[in-house]
């Protein structure tokens, strides 16, 4: 007779069997960020160095900035663990063990990618503090945070130091600063100057100063470190879907929603060209948020149906905040709002999913779809009236109806 250890069924776990555990997911996520990191280094470091505008040490600065972001988050989280741990186990090893399952580097790296190149390091430090300590650890650490930590850090810095973060000297790299046509800093800064001005949106005003849409796709336009290159993000997307870290449909539905609603707004504003929605999804970090933040597992719904609803809502809110809100970029704001609503959406979609054809399922589904439709109509009406030279608020209604 022998006695054995217990345990709960099932006794096979994929996390042990094939190593498909949380650590692997997080490692793959970091690898998925690599194309973006490398591109931003190329664009802001190597290319500028080749142009002869900076020296070798300055060439390494973008990389240094991103690594600093990751390290800051790591150190801060380590300090937090050290301070909050019991006196008995307050040692280096214990902290390291906790850090091992906390994945501290990722929010730091994403935060650095969200900020412009020459953001002062003290702002990065403050943002990292907000991100890891306030956004993550105060909520109970990895897995319990309501907001995407990196996003919270970015949003607080964006709201409070908007003068610094949108300054031309901070955003532009060594080469961009000497190009005359970059009058109004980032493309979205240009877009926001159209608000209420009475001028019609035009390709020549929005896209031409930066080249053409192909440049937008490649990412050779000014902007925050990680958000400019759709190409690099696309490579990251392919990797992450291949490794099953993210679901392919969340980014696709999100970008699709932004595309369709922007197109409708363009039509209302009097320009039905495809360039406008394309421009809309290639600017302001829509791509980056779609692949790396709207898919972030902790702060978005868990079940597939919830992810679909989340992406739809997020798309509508992004357009709403971008065209109507007082801040030029709508992605961050809409994500922060949706991070909160991920919780009810998760519960609702869980109910809808299992009771698809039964009474409660239909009721909850109609609530979600109803709210979505109201938001879409409101977005169209409100933003249509803001950018239209020819149409008044009332006329916008007539176009919709």
């Amino acid at each position, binding site marked *: 007779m022998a006695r054995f250890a217990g345990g709960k*069924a099932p*006794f096979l776990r994929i996390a042990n069997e094939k190593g498909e*555990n949380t650590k692997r997911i997080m490692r793959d996520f970091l690898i998925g960020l690599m194309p973006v990191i490398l591109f931003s280094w190329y664009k802001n470091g190597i290319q500028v160095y080749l142009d002869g505008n900076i020296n070798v040490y300055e060439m390494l600065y973008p990389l240094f900035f991103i690594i600093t972001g990751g390290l800051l988050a790591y150190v801060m989280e380590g300090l937090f663990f050290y301070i909050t741990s019991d006196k008995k186990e307050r040692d280096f090893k214990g902290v390291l063990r906790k850090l091992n399952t906390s994945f501290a580097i990722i929010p730091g790296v994403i935060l650095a990618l969200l900020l412009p190149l020459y953001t002062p390091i003290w702002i990065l430090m403050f943002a990292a503090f907000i991100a890891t300590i306030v956004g993550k650890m105060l909520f109970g650490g990895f897995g319990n945070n309501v907001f995407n930590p990196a996003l919270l850090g970015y949003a607080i810095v964006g709201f409070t130091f908007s003068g610094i973060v949108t300054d031309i000297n901070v955003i532009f790299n060594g080469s961009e600063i000497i190009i005359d046509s970059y009058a109004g800093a980032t493309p979205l800064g240009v877009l926001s100057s159209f608000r209420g001005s009475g001028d019609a949106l035009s390709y020549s005003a929005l896209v031409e100063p930066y080249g053409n849409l192909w440049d937008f796709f490649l990412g050779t336009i000014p902007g925050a470190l990680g958000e400019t290159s759709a190409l690099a993000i696309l490579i990251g997307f392919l990797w992450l879907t291949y490794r099953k870290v993210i679901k392919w449909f969340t980014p696709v539905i999100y970008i699709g929603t932004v595309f369709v609603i922007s197109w409708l707004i363009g039509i209302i504003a009097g320009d039905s060209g495809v360039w406008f929605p394309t421009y809309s999804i290639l600017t302001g970090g829509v791509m980056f948020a779609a692949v790396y933040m709207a898919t972030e597992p902790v702060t978005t*719904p868990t079940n597939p149906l919830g*992810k679909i609803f989340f992406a739809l809502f997020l798309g509508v809110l992004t357009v709403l905040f971008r065209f109507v809100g007082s801040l030029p970029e709508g992605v961050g704001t809409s994500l922060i709002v949706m991070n909160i609503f991920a919780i009810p959406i998760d519960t609702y979609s869980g109910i809808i*999913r299992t009771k698809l054809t039964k009474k409660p399922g239909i009721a909850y589904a109609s609530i979600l779809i109803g709210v979505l439709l109201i938001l879409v109509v409101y977005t169209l009406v409100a933003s249509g009236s803001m950018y239209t030279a020819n149409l008044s608020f009332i006329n916008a209604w007539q176009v919709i109806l």
Partner: protein
Amino acid sequence: MIFHNAKGIQIDGRKDMCKKHPLIDYLNPDTVYIPLIQRHLKLKPKVDVGDSVKIGQVVAEVGGFGAITSHASISGEVKSFKKVWHSSGKMVEAIEIKNDFKNQLDDRIKEVKNVKELTREELVEIMKDSGLTGLGGAGFPSYIKYQTKEDIHTVIINAVECEPYLTCDYQFIIRFAEKLIKGATYMQRAADANKIVIAYKNYNSKVVEVLKPYLEKYSNIELFPIKDIYPAGWEKYIVEQVTGKTYSTLPAEIGVIVNNSATAIIFSDAVERNIPLISRPVSITGEGVKEPKTFFVPLGTKVSELIDQCGGYVEGLDPMQANYIAGGPMTGRAILIDDLVVNDTLGAVIVKPFEIRDYPECLGCGKCADVCPVYLTPTEIKKAYERKDLRLLDLLDASKCMECGLCSYICPSHVEITDAVSKGKALLKKGAK
């Protein structure tokens, strides 16, 4: 549809380790212990200490709904009533019978002459008398399925055995192919159905090989390959694959009865020779056993004896660091001691090294919701259970869970989510009463 594509996943079967040896008879253990429990029903013993019993003699029974009888699986003397470990994870009262190695058969066991003339009612009565239960693991008395008022057109024989490691059904079929076919036809007559479908895993070509010769003789039997995924042996899945229809609680609603293949084999003996359910195949397998084998044993045999027959445990296995599982690895139960008796629901005992489970935090990746075969959202059910929110548990359909274990299997963070959902299901059941 994107959010409704969960149809199970492929799991490494690891069945080869147990297929090296054919089914081995181990029919004369020294002592057997007949458990006095059937699912949740307590059985009343009909013998006393000191009585001598013969093979097939009724030793215990229970009346009412789910009435069932237990039979002596060896001949010998009733030694005592004592508590033994049972596959439910608890100790239960059992009748200890010491083998006299004379193999005396009870008078009831004899060749039945008029097999062809038996009516539907008589066949169901035989099923009830023989104490036949579902040998797949549920242990539900089989005759209750056949007492249905619905019009049954198809009997499905479930030979899928989708759980990893398990090979007892497979080896039982290879050995008793003819009995399977006959048992299935008796079941068809007992249900007054006109068609038999034998569902098997598509890679088990040997099953086709041994059953093919009989198919020409019985034109109403059909073989149906099922994809190699888990949980393909789930009743609802098989019925859906075979008939294309789905049901809410019982397959009889759409005119189908599903029975395990081992049950069919035992039933053919019950009809032809009136042998009750006294033995079943059991796989002793897993990385922790020296030579995994499948045995055909009388009910009540001690598993520790069978493990000795397999050459014991592998060297270097620390019993404190091993999982010892009654049933399949996905739905089975951890038993703390190897002093367990074989009962009608025990298809396998698996010994494998204990795996360390860390990463306690759920990261919300949603893989559990993706993989759920009944489209539940396990994470939400877990939260509702932790808040004891009965209304939400009901809205989230926690009662639909069939505890297949896939959500815990797939979880990258080792969250014991199947356990939480099944607790939520139990809470809902308790709260609803």
